């Protein structure tokens, strides 16, 4: 719990329909929601498939955790005071091998080594006792 107090950066506000996602992250598993009716994967998680099916019959598929950087930006400023004094952080949109895109951070590398098309894989950052953020690092 001590950790929770020291982490000042924004945390996700978990909704009923996204709880399975965050529960899995805590177990270091990345899940992607899928409409059972059409078999289509989608992201971000919602209670209803955004397709024409409007299905609420959602199943969670385990992701292989690999993808490519679709675009990125080295941020020299964060969105809140908690980022003050931090080194620049890389915000990226990663296109997963499963086809969906995820907003994330690219970590474990020099921010200026990041390129569009770079192959990346998921790493799990346990930022608090309750929340684990999936982030990505370059595939060596």
């Amino acid at each position, binding site marked *: 719990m001590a950790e929770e107090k020291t982490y000042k950066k*924004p945390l*996700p506000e978990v*909704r009923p329909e996204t709880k399975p996602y965050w529960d899995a992250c805590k177990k270091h598993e990345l899940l992607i929601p899928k409409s059972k009716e059409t078999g289509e994967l989608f992201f971000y998680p919602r209670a209803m498939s955004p397709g024409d099916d409007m299905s609420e019959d959602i199943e969670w598929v385990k992701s292989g955790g690999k993808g490519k950087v679709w675009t*990125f*930006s*080295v941020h020299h400023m964060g969105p809140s005071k908690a980022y003050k004094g931090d080194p620049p952080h890389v915000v990226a949109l990663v296109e997963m091998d499963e086809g969906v*895109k995820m*907003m994330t951070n690219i970590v474990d590398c020099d921010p200026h080594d990041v390129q569009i098309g770079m192959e990346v894989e998921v790493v799990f950052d346990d930022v608090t006792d309750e929340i684990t953020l999936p982030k990505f690092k370059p595939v060596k």
Partner: protein
Amino acid sequence: MATNFPGIEEARDILKKNKIVVAGVGETEQGKIPDKSSFHFLSQASKLAIEDAGIKKSDVDGLVTAFSLVEHTFMHCTTFADYFGMRPSFFSSVAVGGATAVWMVAEAAMAIASGQAEVVLCVRGDNTLSGISSSGMVALIREMCHPEFEYPYGLTTPGGYALAAQRYMHEYNATSEQLASVAVTMRKHAAMKENAMSKDPLTVEDVLNSRIIAEPLHKYDCSVISDGGAAFIITTEKKAQELGIQNPPAYLWGMGEGYSHQYLTSLESLDQIYNAINHSGTKAFQTAGIDPKDVDLAYLYDCFTITVLLELEGLGLVPKGQAGVFAQEGRLEIGKDLPVNTHGGLLSQAHLGAMHHVIEAALQLRGDAGDRQVDDAEVALVHGNGGIVSAHSSIVLGKQPLS
């Protein structure tokens, strides 16, 4: 894109029959003005627009406002109606971010065409620079990205545009110099606008040497933040004549919206953004019965330099991937191929959504743009963009009635 939209002919007939016009405009001082509230700016701008039209406040029977980033109201239009002392028969708050101001014109036109009002005051004002709290700023940033799946990664609003810029530069080999040249042109234009916030000359080098906010965007790739108010009056040609309004009218020729995504996570490709911009513009162009090449003046939402390039290309004003070079060659300047934001835009004049874009288009068409006046300007396009190049709105204004 050769889409044929249903209802275009009907929309054209409605605009032809009603002859909707911008009949009066008002702008307060813009910049850092710490001693005025949001509602004070709204009132001042409204008064200026009413006076510019030469009518009485009681002649106004419709009110369209937007929102405030400082004064959080649940019913913005009626809160302002009370403050300003009016009892409109039609009222509406438009809240589609940067797409708002352009859509206010459409909202007013639709209200008039359906008999809800005859003279509609559209107004925005805010003390964004002086009045916003740090928690208010955080709330605004949070609003622009997904609170659960984007915000925890430290995405900012400039960062969202930076993500679009990085991808654009990757796909079309565009350069930071090309982006910077958009800011340079806006600054040149702002130097001729009385109430512009930033008038000091700016070079491409100045932009590239300014602080990096979110790569590849520098400080001067980002718009100003300002305090101020702006308003315009929408009515019909007939009603304007009845009220004895002397201003030459700017006629509404067409309008359209286009939507891509709210969150960048939902973006499939850069083309999805282009298609949304194109949908918005093409609807307006088709209703107006014109092609992009007929546009004499373009007022493009310029929250960031990248936004202008995406809009120029999405609207079909410049071929895809060529807007950077077009900007770099100075072709967006007054006197060149396609003058853009002759008032200096959000990058240099003031940031009140596209309110000033609409006003400048009307001033140019009525021949009241002073040193900035573009000769023989007959057709102006105004384009608004809300979110992270998400929600788009376009109008075409003409010097003559739609024929």
